[in-house]
Structures are given as C-alpha cells and as structure tokens.
C-alpha cells in the first residue's frame, strides 16, 4: 500500500491553561465567571485538599473541619454564585455555566466537596424554579452569605426526595412521604402535617431547611407537591444517622425523619383552593423535572474534572518512575522519560485525556444551552399563561405548532423569504434549544459519569500500586470511587437512558442532528484532522440504525424500538452519547482555533495546542465511531435468527453439484462460494449459512465506509502520545496529597 509523507506538525508546549479553557468553554468574556473559577480553585486546592490529605474522608460523620469547608465556600463566593445580586450574589442572569464551573473546580480535588456546595443549591432549586416570589426572596436571602456588616449565619438547605426502599429511588413518581391537613380555620392559612422519611439526603447534618417531596394523604389536598420544612417547625426534625458512604465523605449524607406541622404557604409554588380542596400549583414531578434537568449537568462535569485532573499526576509519575534507581543517571532516556518510553503508557493516558476533554466539552455545552434556554423558557411560560394554557400535556400540545415551524426553518434554503420571520421567533428558538437541552442533559449525566468512571480506573491503573493508596498524588483512587456515585445520584444511569430514548427520537432533535452531520462534514473540509468526518459517518450510521429499528421487528413480530425493549433503546442511547461528546469536543477545538489568536496568552503556541487537542478529538471520534459501529451492528443483526442448516436456511446455498457445473462456465467461482452443501447434506462446520437481513447491504456499506474513515486516527494518537512525552508540566502538583 502506498503511503503519503507524514507532514511535520507543531506540538503543545505546556498543559492547557486558563486562557485556552476560557475560549474553549466560552467564558473568555465573562470576568465574573473567571473570578468564580479562581475563587473556587483556591478553596479546592487549599482548604479542601488539605482536608483530604489529612484523612477527613475517613469519617462518615459531619465534623468541625467539614463545617469549616462550607464556610470557606461562603467566603469564596461559591455559595453566593446561585443568588442574584439583589439576593446577595454577584452574577447576573442564568447561572448554569457558573455553577458548573465552580463544581468542576471543586471536583478537580474532591467530588464530595463539590457535592456539598451543590446540595444547598439543589435544596433551593425547587424554590428558585417553581417557588412563589415571596418564597424565592425569603429563602434565597436567608441562604446568601452575610454581606459586609451583617452578623448572621447563612441558612443551609437539603433536598429530600429519595425515600427508604421500596419507594422513591427507582421511580420518582411514587412517594411514601405524606401530607395531611391538621387544622383549617375559616379565612386562615391551613396547617399541614408532613410525614417524610428520607434516604441518602445530602447536607442533612446541618440543614436549616429542607425541601421535601410528599403526596397527599388527605382528600382535601390534591396530588403531590414539594413542601418546605424548617428545623424550628413544631414536631420532629430528626437528622437521622449518617450514611456509611465509601465515597464523597466530605459531604453530609443521612436518613432523616420528619414529622412536622407547617403552614400551607410552605407548599413550593403555592396552591389554589378549588371546591374546598388544596390544589398545589406544581406537583412534585413538575418541580423535580425543572430542577434535575439542570443540576444533572453539573454532576457530569464533576467526573470530567476528575479525568482532566489525573493527567498531570500521571505524567509526573510516569516520568519520575525510575528516579533514584541505581544506575539510572540523569540525562538517560530511562531517567528523563521513565515509563513514557513505552507507547502503551502514553496511549492509555491519551485515552484518559481524550475522554476528559470530550466529557468537559459535552457538559459545558449542556450548561451553556440551559443558560440560553432560561430567558426563552420564561418567555414561553409567560405566553402560555397569557393564553391560559396550563398542565404539561396542554403545554406540549400548544408547542406543536412552534415545533413544526422550527422543523420547517431547519429545512429552508438560506434565501427562503420565510426564514427571517421564523429565525426571530422566540418560541421557535425555544423548542429548538429545548429539544437539544433535553438530550444533552441526560447524555452528560450518563456518558460523563459512566464512561468517565471506567476511564478513571484506567487512570488509577497508570499509577501502578501507588494509584490505590492514600498517598497517590491527585487522590486518584478516591476520584475513581467517587465517579461511581456520580453515575448514581440525581438519577441513576437507567433513568438517564430512559429519558434519552424519548427525547432523542423527537423530530425537532433529529432534524437538528441531521444538520449536525453536515456541520461535521464542513468542519472536516475546512480543518481536516479532528476526526469530524469520521464522526459524521458514525452519526449517519446511528441515524440509519434508529430508523431501521423503529420499523423493524423481531422474529415473532414484536417491534424492536419500543419503550419496554431496553436492550434496543438503551443501547442506542449509549451510542448517541459517544457521538454527542465527540461533536462537542470537536466544536470546542474549532472555537479555540478560530478565537485563540485574539488572546495574547492563548495565541502563544496556539498552533501546537490546537494540533494536540485536534489529535485528542480525532482519537475520541474514532472511539465513538467504533462504539456506534459495534452497537449498531449488534442491534441491526442481533435480532435476526441465524439461518440453520435446514431447508429454509440452505435455500440460498450452493450445492456441490451446482458449483461443479458453474465452474465450467465461470472458472474460479468455487473460491467465492462460502456456504456449500454436499450431496450427502454435509456443510461447513459453523452455526449455519451466513446471515443477511433487510437493509443489511446498506448498513454494511456504511460500516465499510466508516472503517476507511478511521484512516489517520492512530497517527493522531501517536502524535498525541509524542506530545505527552514532551509537554512541560509544573514541578509539583499545586495541591497537597
């Protein structure tokens, strides 16, 4: 095979710094976020890191040192990041990206610290998303850190959804926490009795208030709701026992018991009295949907931070592995490169790094789209209210027209005169972004944490035995374990897959997905070497497979793409996540390439940095393509019965006699015949004649194309590995171990 000359490329000199990340993750023009990053980083790499190094994770109980960490969050502005300026915060507008960045920085050192900071936001989120104006002002002001001259402690919150088995946890629609009316005098606020037992409730050791999901146990209250409980309420506010977690020990988790009397004004979002019945304005499902669709993104980013944080300690370990050994002198390859002399060590670290990049890109893209969506959602809500549309189904129905307009916009030619009108319609913009957000959020939570946890195991293994000790720089073993919790809490993997199986098949999303394929081809044309073309081919394969499965049946005639058939739907959701992460990674590299030159710091050595990050993206795109190819092939062919050596199965086989006859007119045909049945019925030793299925030739054509699209991906990996062996790293990790 002919080979082309491999062009010489520039290389990255140092690990990507803030200037690079700010451009990639789109906050180069947001100094409020840049300051938050620096602030959170300082707390993470001093207070938090010292606690971990001192063994504070070795206790399940809430300790004074852990409490001090929460105060450090207050002082550093992390707690206030959730608040509006008038509530004591300093960031104006949507805060999904802000909270994601703060959690990313904290999780760089310890996931439990990040969870502790997020849990207070999680408690406030139901109030923030659905609360009445009074509730929002009251609780967010209480939770804001004290301002200059104020002498008070900020309130901390906990969100109580999960209940002891066999209730909430698998299906959040079922609750055992109960709500009854104990007193309702004419003209006055009803008094409610709340009975709720929680399980695995974060921040519970010190929470001053709890937002708890409960269901009516009284005919005078309709359905379910979220209710606010305070530690001073009449009754039992028992924080319960601390959960004996093996992970995230810097956050408080316990199983509380609440038996409290509270006024009905504590129902989140308020209520309406209809025919003598209290009807909460939001049921608990609506509240938690509004909350989790945002907060889950942040969790996914925590695992991304772990992966990227592992790179520097692993490089240092690899390079210094033989320092001090007898006979290994400075200046020798063995001394200078250590384990990095070996390709395998470098290639495996490339995989860890590439996954971390993709996970971060996916997560921050999701966070940004939620920021974009927030004002549009407010506009949508206001419009629905104006139109008198309420209830989830009614709203979905009302949005159908906007969805159709959005889909038609996506299909319009650039010079179509209707484009201008649709492009400025905020409802069209809303349904487009909402459809993407509904996919990116579960994808981030599912892929970042699941694939991320597996890659953290790789990172740990790259440190040898050192990796699974408490002394391991970067606390990698802790991070590996922590990643498993991140895959589980706030909706385990099955919940995310379930959501994806619904949202990824919405036409508004698929119409955008088709455009993304063309977008990747264009990227590949403009800037070859990112793996964008490979990814586009894999996206086409995924799309084809989805359509095929939506129309195909199994041998007994049952539909393959069906809600109950998770062997199909969940696998396809997994495959999509690989594609989404890779796409976001490529787009971030393109952003850096386009804008890096405008920043004097990023511009220094930009070509080398872009080259390296492109190589990582290429590596990741190839892995994504491999996953999609594997999963798709299993699904397309796996539900067909394999032909047997029976009459039906052999109907397309040659017999020996037929071949002998054909050989006379077509010499050599015997060499191409695979399934040949002898006169005595003998046949090759295998399961049956080779299988085919409807559409298989289309699929195999795509798969063949995809294979050739992988050209260059291993060269990219080699280049990335070479950079890893040369890139300059700091003399020491900037946090203790």
């Amino acid at each position: 095979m002919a080979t082309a000359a491999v062009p010489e490329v520039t290389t990255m000199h140092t690990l990507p710094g803030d200037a690079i990340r700010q451009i990639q993750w789109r906050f180069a023009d947001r100094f409020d976020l840049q300051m938050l990053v620096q602030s959170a980083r300082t707390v993470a790499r001093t207070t938090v890191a010292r606690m971990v190094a001192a063994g504070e994770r070795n206790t399940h109980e809430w300790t004074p040192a852990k409490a001090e960490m929460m105060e450090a969050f207050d002082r550093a502005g992390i707690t206030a990041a959730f608040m509006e300026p008038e509530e004591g915060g300093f960031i104006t507008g949507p805060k999904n990206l802000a909270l994601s960045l703060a959690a990313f920085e904290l999780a760089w050192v310890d996931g439990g610290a990040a969870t502790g900071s997020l849990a207070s936001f999680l408690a406030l989120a139901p109030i923030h998303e659905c609360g009445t104006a009074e509730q929002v002002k009251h609780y967010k002001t209480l939770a804001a850190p004290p301002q200059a001259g104020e002498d008070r402690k900020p309130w901390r919150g906990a969100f109580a959804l999960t209940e002891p088995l066999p209730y909430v946890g698998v299906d959040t629609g079922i609750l055992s926490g109960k709500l009854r009316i104990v007193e309702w005098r004419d003209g006055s606020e009803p008094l409610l009795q709340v009975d709720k037992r929680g399980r695995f409730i974060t921040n519970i050791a010190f929470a001053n208030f709890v937002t708890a999901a409960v269901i009516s146990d009284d005919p005078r209250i309709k359905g379910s709701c979220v209710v606010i409980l305070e530690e001073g309420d009449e009754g039992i506010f028992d924080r319960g026992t601390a959960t004996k977690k093996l992970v995230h020990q810097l956050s408080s988790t316990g199983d509380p018991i609440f038996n409290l009397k509270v006024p009905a004004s504590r129902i989140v979002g308020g209520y309406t009295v209809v025919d003598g019945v209290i009807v909460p304005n939001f049921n608990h499902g609506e509240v938690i949907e509004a909350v989790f669709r945002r907060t889950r993104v942040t969790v996914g980013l925590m695992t991304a931070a772990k992966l990227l944080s592992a790179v520097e300690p692993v490089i240092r370990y690899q390079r210094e592995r033989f320092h001090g050994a007898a006979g290994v002198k400075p200046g020798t390859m063995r001394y200078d490169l250590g384990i990095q002399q070996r390709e395998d060590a470098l290639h495996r670290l490339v995989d860890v790094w590439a996954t971390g990049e993709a996970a971060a890109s996916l997560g921050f893209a999701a966070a940004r789209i939620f920021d974009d969506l927030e004002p549009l959602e407010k506009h949508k809500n206001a419009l629905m209210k104006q139109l008198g549309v309420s209830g989830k189904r009614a709203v979905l129905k009302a949005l159908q027209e906007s969805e159709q307009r959005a889909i038609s916009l996506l299909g319009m030619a650039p010079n179509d005169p209707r484009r201008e009108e649709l492009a400025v319609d905020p409802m069209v913009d809303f349904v487009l972004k909402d459809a993407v957000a509904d996919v990116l959020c579960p994808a981030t939570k599912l892929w970042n944490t699941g694939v991320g946890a597996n890659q953290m195991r790789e990172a740990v293994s790259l440190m040898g035995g050192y990796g699974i000790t408490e002394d391991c720089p970067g606390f990698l073993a802790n991070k590996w374990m922590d990643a498993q919790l991140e895959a589980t809490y706030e909706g385990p993997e099955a919940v995310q897959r379930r959501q994806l199986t619904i949202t990824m098949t919405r036409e508004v999303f698929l119409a955008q997905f088709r455009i993304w394929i063309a977008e990747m081809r264009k990227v590949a044309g403009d800037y070859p070497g990112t793996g964008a073309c490979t990814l586009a081919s894999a996206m086409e394969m995924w799309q084809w497979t989805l359509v095929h499965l939506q129309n195909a049946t199994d041998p007994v005639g049952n539909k393959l793409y069906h809600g109950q058939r998770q062997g199909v739907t969940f696998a396809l959701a997994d495959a999509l996540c690989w594609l989404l992460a890779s796409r976001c990674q490529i787009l971030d590299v393109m952003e850096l390439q386009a804008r890096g030159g405008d920043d004097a710091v990023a511009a220094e050595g930009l070509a080398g940095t872009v080259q390296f990050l492109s190589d990582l993206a290429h590596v990741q795109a190839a892995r994504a393509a491999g996953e999609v190819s594997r999963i798709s092939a299993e699904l397309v062919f796996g539900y067909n019965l394999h032909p047997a050596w029976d009459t039906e199965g052999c109907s397309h086989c040659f017999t020996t006699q037929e071949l002998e006859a054909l050989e006379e007119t077509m010499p050599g045909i015997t060499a191409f015949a695979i399934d040949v049945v002898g006169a005595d019925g003998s046949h090759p030793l295998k399961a049956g004649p080779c299988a085919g299925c409807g559409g298989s030739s289309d699929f195999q054509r795509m798969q063949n194309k995809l294979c050739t699209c992988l050209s260059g991906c291993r060269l990219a990996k080699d280049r990335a590995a070479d950079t890893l062996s040369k890139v300059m790293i700091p003399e020491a990790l900037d946090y203790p171990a």
Partner: protein
Amino acid sequence: MAQALQLVVCAGIVPDPLQTLEPVTGPNGPGLKNEMVLPAVLDPWAACALYEAAQLVAKNPGSKLWLVSLGPKAKLQQVMMTVGQKAVFELIPIDGPIGGFPDAHSTAAALAEAIAALPGFDRERLLLFGGWESATRGAGVTLQLVGERLGITDQFQGVDQITLREDGSFEVLERVEGGRHQVSVCAGTPAVLGWATGNLAEPRNNPQTGMANMRGIMPALQKAKTVALDGNGLRYVSVSLPKQQRETRVEKNMTADEIARELVEWIGAE
C-alpha cells in the same frame, strides 16, 4: 487620627513558582521557556505590599490605593481575576514585556511616568510601595529608581511593618541581619517602602470585591499604554539548578528530643 493617604503599589507579574522555570535565550534576550503561557501570579513580595497598603487604606478613610503594574496586558488580566478579589484598588496597567530582564532604569521611567500622571496625584501624601525582592531575576533596584525619579528620598527596604502616628510621622520596621529589625521613624510622607513579607495573611478571595474592581480594571486594561523597554545587554553565561541533596537515615529507636538535638546540631553546622 486617620490620614488621607495616596498609596501606590508597584507590582509586576511572575510565573507561578510551582511551574518548571527553564532559562532560554530568545530573540529579545534572556527569558524563560514558555513564559507567556505559564500561569502567572502577582510578584509575591509586591503582593504583600498590596495587602499592607489595602489595610492602611481601610484604616485611613479618604485614602486611595492604586496598583501600577507593567506586563503583557493579557497576562495582567488573568492575574487580576484573582488579585482583584483580594483588595479594593484602581489598576494602572502598562502594557509591556514579560519577564525580569528588561532594563531597570527604563522600567522605572515608565512606572514613574504613569504614577506622576495619576489623576489627583499629590506627591506629598504619597506612600510608594513595592517588593524589596522579586520572584523574577530580582535586580532589586527598580522601586528605588522609581522613588528617585519622583524625587522621594526617604526610602526603606525589607519592610515588615509600618505604624502611622497621629502627627503624620510613621514608624517602619526594616529587616536587618540576624533576624532583627531596624526601627526608623520618618517625619512623614512621601516615602518609598520596599516590603519583605509584612505580617498579614493573604486576603481571601471575595468575588464581590472583584466585581466592584473589575468595573475599573477591564476598561483600564483596554486603554493600557504600551511601552517598549530598553534591553540591557544581559545574556546567560551559565545556568544551573540549585543542587538537590537528600540524606535519609532510618532511625527507629531515637526519642523526639534526640532527633531535635541532632537537627539543631546539623542546622548549626551548615
């Protein structure tokens, strides 16, 4: 009685000390490998001066604090994301080259010119602060030269403490040999103080302070005047890392007192 002071802190930026600092000779003379890309921090000694100045401002209502910094403005902006959260000040950025090798005289000239041009500048009320050392090459003369150019002859170096008196005079503690301090009393401003470490802890980040500062910092960075500094003909003759020495001995049966005694003897022998 509180005095309304004008405090100017001169502070450059330097690579984060944890980074690998590898000397190289570039087209503009000596420098550090990848210096522009390495994370930077405010020069540590000058940072101490800034925190001391901020405290003086807090104790003396009506006072004003400027931070005058010469370096690439893109790097200055990154550093300000942290430093801007630690104290209230007005940044006077001067866009110039990175590193510790430009000529100290031309650097001092640029700084003095910027200080003299401060709006409402009153030399008689001025306390000019900076670091007595630097984490870069550390010529250790720039601050003195700035003072000379501003006509300020009361200069103190290695300062760890300043105490203002009601009559406008102030007491200064300067480091001298043997871990001692020299106590001086100066009749009043103006004066130049090159700070050692001072006595204050590094202030915590406060994003709200940062947000307030940024309203002035970002426009100032955009308008920063660019200066070209003279080279001084410096070149590396030889460069070597400090020798690392490791003498490990495993002792299982010594008491803490015995270990301490041996350590003291060992230190004394150095």
